[in-house]
């Protein structure tokens, strides 16, 4: 590696750093529903070794109506111990693993047979891809799983290239196993990818004993999580809640005794095909898949910058030329990736489909390299492409770092963190703090303030473990989380009421003591106390 390459690598990592780390608490504008669940469990584990639901070191974390994979929560324990509960502590692991995925991507391109130029291009493209920037800045499981899949593949390819290196193979299997602990998509995807690798490199894997031992190691490492799933099957496993057959229309037809089994089979196949189609829709991938702005806004950003579509189209057809030895594997990898997300509800979901990011980026890289070679001396072509990329990147940055936090704050339950700041100061002034969890226009949504408020006020998690939950609401410490109906509510002194903007108390008895507004200046929450 020469000095110029080292400088370019440093520049790519710098780009990855500046797009992923600054303003983690600002964009996205608030910890989301899923993030706060992970963050609270990490905080709770750090002091009690138990999760929100009082389970000792769980392998599956019960969340709101679903369950979360364990690794992200356990990785969040250290930052929360070092920095205390907060946005940075919650999002830091994802940002770190997002950054680390960039050099792994470069290494993967090289190991798959790409040139040094292609490796650097692959790293640069990943560093600038909106999908990866977005995923790295939220505390979600799939981004961490993506790193472990990439690192596992890296180890596997090293093992193949370095004459069956046992150390590389062991690291690979551990990494693949960790990906299974990181996100539920990987429960099926990782074994599927391993099967493909085993078949693709069958001359090595079927003849060398270390690969059999590697497979056994992988199975041993993942056995606890699958044992846990089987033990709790039918009660709380996520696989039971997110499968595509729960789609209301399909579910009704599958339960209809008048439909023949073959027709049911066709319905299932068509549903999977429909989901697969939405995951591979070029409009979704390159124009509006990131869904940062309200529906119908034409300035939406795609999962990739839209000029990358040109490179993907070229790369798809000319992949064998750029990766002569492993193009078949890349094709299979790219085709396989959206398959597992297609088996789940509410497609397309950019988080579940994150596994597709790497093969697509590799294909885009091939496209860039082909066009770069084709027009080696045409300054105009390069200038036009660079301008298009720059313009699309500018719009993405403007939307992501400025317009998105302003226009989509409510979707992130914005306001609870700010209200927690007020509660922290006035905690001693009240005997009871009653919080209505509803929010949004006409109170259509129900939030999770029972996690946000204790997290941001740094409440002792032990108090949460002795909570009372019944049909009226959730109660712990001096908090009550329940819908407030002012007709039946009897306000009393020393009580603080926190309500959404569309549920104000009748005038007279209570007075507003604090108000939290959304970044677009609309009221989000109001706090009321006795006159």
């Amino acid at each position, binding site marked *: 590696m020469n000095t110029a390459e080292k400088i370019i690598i440093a520049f790519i990592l710098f780009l990855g750093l500046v797009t992923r780390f600054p303003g983690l608490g600002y964009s996205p504008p608030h910890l989301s529903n899923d993030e706060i669940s992970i963050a609270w469990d990490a905080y709770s584990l750090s002091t009690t070794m138990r999760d929100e639901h009082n389970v000792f070191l769980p392998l599956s974390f019960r969340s709101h109506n679903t369950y979360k994979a364990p690794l992200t929560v356990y990785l969040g324990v250290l930052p929360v111990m070092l920095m205390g509960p907060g946005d940075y502590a919650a999002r830091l692991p994802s940002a770190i693993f997002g950054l680390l995925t960039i050099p792994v991507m470069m290494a993967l391109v090289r190991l798959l047979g790409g040139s040094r130029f292609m490796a650097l291009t692959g790293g640069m493209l990943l560093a600038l891809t909106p999908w990866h920037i977005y995923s790295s800045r939220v505390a979600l499981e799939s981004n961490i799983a993506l790193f472990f899949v990439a690192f596992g593949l890296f180890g596997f390819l090293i093992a193949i290239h370095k004459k069956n290196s046992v150390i590389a193979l062991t690291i690979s299997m551990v990494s693949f196993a960790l990906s299974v602990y990181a996100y539920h998509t990987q429960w099926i995807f990782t074994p599927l990818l391993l099967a493909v690798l085993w078949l693709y490199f069958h001359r090595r894997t079927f003849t060398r004993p270390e690969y059999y031992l590697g497979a056994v190691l992988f199975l041993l490492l993942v056995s606890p999580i699958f044992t846990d799933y089987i033990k709790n099957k039918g009660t709380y496993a996520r696989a039971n809640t997110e499968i595509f057959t729960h789609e209301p229309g399909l579910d009704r037809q599958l339960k209809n005794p008048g439909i023949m089994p073959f027709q049911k089979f066709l319905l299932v196949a068509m549903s999977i095909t429909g989901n697969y189609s939405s995951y591979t829709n070029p409009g979704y991938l390159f124009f509006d898949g990131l869904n940062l702005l309200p529906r119908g806004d034409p300035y939406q950003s795609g999962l990739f910058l839209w000029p990358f579509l040109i490179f993907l189209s070229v790369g798809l057809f000319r992949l064998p030329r750029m990766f002569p030895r492993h193009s078949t594997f890349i094709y299979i990898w790219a085709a396989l990736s959206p398959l597992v997300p297609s088996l789940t509800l509410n497609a397309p979901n950019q988080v579940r489909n994150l596994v597709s990011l790497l093969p697509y980026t590799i294909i885009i890289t091939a496209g860039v390299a082909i066009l770069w070679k084709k027009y080696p001396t045409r300054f105009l072509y390069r200038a036009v492409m660079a301008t298009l990329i720059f313009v699309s990147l500018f719009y993405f940055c403007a939307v992501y770092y400025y317009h998105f936090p*302003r226009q989509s704050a409510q979707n992130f339950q914005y306001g609870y963190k700010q209200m927690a700041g007020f509660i922290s100061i006035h905690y001693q002034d009240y005997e009871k703090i009653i919080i209505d969890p509803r929010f949004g226009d006409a109170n259509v949504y129900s939030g999770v303030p029972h996690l946000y408020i204790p997290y941001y006020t740094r409440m002792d998690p032990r108090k949460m473990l002795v909570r009372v939950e019944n049909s009226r609401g959730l109660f712990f410490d001096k908090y009550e989380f329940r819908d407030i109906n002012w007709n039946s509510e009897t306000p009393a002194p020393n009580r603080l009421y926190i309500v959404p903007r569309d549920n104000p108390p009748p005038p007279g008895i209570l007075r507003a003591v604090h108000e939290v507004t959304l970044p677009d200046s609309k009221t989000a929450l109001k706090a009321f106390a006795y006159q």
Partner: protein
Amino acid sequence: MVPALVLIFSLAFYIRLHPGRQTPAVYLAILSLAFTPLLHFRPDHNAAILLLILFSFFLWLWSLVPRGKWVVIILALVSVFWGGLLAGKIVSWPAAVDRTRLIFDVPTYKDAVRLHQRDARYVPFPVRRLLFNPSVYTYILGNNFFRFLTLENLMGSLLLANLYPLGLGLADFFRRPEDFPRPFRVFLLLLFLQITVSRSPDKFNSLYVWFPLLAYLILRGARDVRLKAYFLLLLISIIFVLPRPV
């Protein structure tokens, strides 16, 4: 009757341009074209059916006549353009444009441009008007076109199996456009425009009159397909797509 006529003219057009012995995959493609749902679709306007027949006929005639080709191609262009607008419901018979079906009259787009101009306080107002203005419609058009190009839409109208030769045919066109009939570029541009300007393009209505063009691309690509893979895809198509459940 209509599908048979259209298919015959489309095949005649292809064979006129590529005489000589055909590969087995081309015969398989002819068979699969006969089964494509698009060919058996019936649009709302009977005039669109007539214009489809005319378009396929003019294409064949274009390949046949030694002189006056430009007259024939103009007739073909008119029939496909008008037929496309009628089938796509962008105009109602005989030629009244339905503005509600066009992408340009969507209020949310106009509101969003105004909102971003007002909100983007990180730049001075004149620059905001440069950054956020109706030029965003080019992006919307691109999005609209590529949103239409889904596996589901293409499979549903042309069969899964035919996507393979269609992809190869298109790749061939982009690689060597000079090997294709000259008017092809104009036709593809028209197809692109018709899909993009429609507010919610439908897979059948938008592609209906373009069948002869798509058939040509499929037949052209079929020469390069791997026969076994194509046959397998055709079998899957017949099992999954043709018997439509409930």
